[in-house]
């Protein structure tokens, strides 16, 4: 029972981190209709900056620097690359992010190699006991901090002018342009947000008990794909739900590997995709995705 509870808590914590990654992914898609294949390398770059800066300037400043760099990378991607492609050519833009991803991954592979860079977060190495549960402090902090972050984001989207513009342009880009919303600013902000959210999630992923920043974090971030699809690709609430579902299911399956041996070893990694395909057979636009209607 304790073990199940422990797994659940770990799963929720991982799921919240997935939710952050997925949110950035989905916000970009909503604002610009671009599938950002470079999202995982945004995450790795941000957290790499944190880890390589923290020995000299301390964790707090390094975290801010990492967020800033990833945000700027998002901005640069939008301003320098995507804005030069026809807005309606979503394929070209998606492939462009593939190219960007290749370059970023190559550079990060060159710099990181096999090494593990310590993240240096103040909560690293700490374990808390909550009743019968023994949990890394990271898990507890994630469960507290991520909902606050998501709440803040929701407030931003619902209460501010930018949020309104964002939602309007997502609902109907042409209409929004007609009423004077500057689409470019909205999409630039979306890309910056994606970088920030990815880095925030990356800090969580690289924290104790994970030994630090290494290349394998990028492959973890790929889980945002099925999470986004399960939730529905154009739904922010769906992104959060999808992230949580993937996190919890992954941890539960991996934690019960022995009794699930018929699924084969390492089933935790693929179960997210199984869930995804089942969800899609049931609802072709994900749990919360809006149906596309073809109008002729």
């Amino acid at each position: 029972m304790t073990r199940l509870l422990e797994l659940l808590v770990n799963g929720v914590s991982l799921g919240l981190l997935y939710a952050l990654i997925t949110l950035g992914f989905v916000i970009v898609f909503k604002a610009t209709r671009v599938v950002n294949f470079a999202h995982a390398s945004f995450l790795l770059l941000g957290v790499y900056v944190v880890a390589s800066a923290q020995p000299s300037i301390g964790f707090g400043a390094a975290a801010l620097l990492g967020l800033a760099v990833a945000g700027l990378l998002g901005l640069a991607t939008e301003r320098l690359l995507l804005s030069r492609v026809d807005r309606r050519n979503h394929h070209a833009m998606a492939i462009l992010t593939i190219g960007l991803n290749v370059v970023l991954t190559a550079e990060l592979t060159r710099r990181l190699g096999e090494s593990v860079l310590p993240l240096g977060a103040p909560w690293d190495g700490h374990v808390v006991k909550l009743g019968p549960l023994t949990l890394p402090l990271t898990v507890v902090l994630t469960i507290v901090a991520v909902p606050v972050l998501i709440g803040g984001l929701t407030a931003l989207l619902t209460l501010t002018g930018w949020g309104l513009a964002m939602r309007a342009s997502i609902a109907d880009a042409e209409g929004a342009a007609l009423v004077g919303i500057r689409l470019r600013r909205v999409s630039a902000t979306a890309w910056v947000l994606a970088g920030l959210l990815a880095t925030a999630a990356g800090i969580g992923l690289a924290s104790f008990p994970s030994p630090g920043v290494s290349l394998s974090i990028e492959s973890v971030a790929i889980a945002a794909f099925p999470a986004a699809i399960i939730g529905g690709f154009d739904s922010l609430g769906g992104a959060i739900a999808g992230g949580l579902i993937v996190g919890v299911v992954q941890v539960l399956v991996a934690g019960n590997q022995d009794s699930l041996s018929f699924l084969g070893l390492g089933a935790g990694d693929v179960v997210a995709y199984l869930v995804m395909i089942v969800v899609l057979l049931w609802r072709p636009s994900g749990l919360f995705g809006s149906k596309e209607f073809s109008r002729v």
Partner: protein
Amino acid sequence: MSPPRLAVEEVSLAFSGLLALDEVCFTVEPGTVHAVIGPNGAGKSSLLNTLCGIYPVTGGRILLDEHEVTRLRTDRIAALGVGRTFQNIVVSPQESVLDNLMVGRHRLTSAGLVATALWLGRREQRRHEERVREIAHFVGLSARLDSTAGLLAYGDLKRLEFARALCLEPRLLILDEPVAGLNAAESWELGQLVLTARKALDLTVVFVEHDMGVVMSIADRITVLDFGRVVAEGLPAEVRRDPIVVSAYLGAPDRPEATPQAERTPQ
């Protein structure tokens, strides 16, 4: 083969509770040209889409001669000889005009993947290409056959769609605003093409159009829709004088164009 008779019997269509068509009834006699008019949002396009099986009806029946086509799939209805054009032009913009027209021969040809892969579809293709060239000549697109469709002028695109519908060798031709966006001369020309095609190819024609000049000059009968209901039906001259029609549609120019009705955004 003689042109078919189309009977629409108490057809209703609802989108998540919103009634787009409400027990619509009318009959199109074989070989006639039948216009459906009405203000924006009246349900005209929805009606055409139910005829083609694109929107599933929520009630009523649609008969093509004695065949009930109410719940048939769109491609099955096309296979029965129903050709159509679309309100907002539907072509493959990167393909040549000839290729776009050849798609119209899909139902009349049979070369499948395997046959085509093994060079077995060529003879069939050549035979049909001849007929397609004739049709292109008929609508005046001969000179454009090798052009990329996306680069055509608007008027040519409209003719391309019309020609492609003819390439199906239809018995029933459905036209959704065939002259919208054309100038008066082009509109008149296309109207005459419809009449010629009807005669030469033995067609029954149903069309939706806002251009009253064209409607009055080519339609044999007119059905008027408003809010998804038939509000009037008759000969052009009768409809023109019908007080309900005048108030609902023709005589009320100040009526707001963009009505927030079901047809706009079917959800």
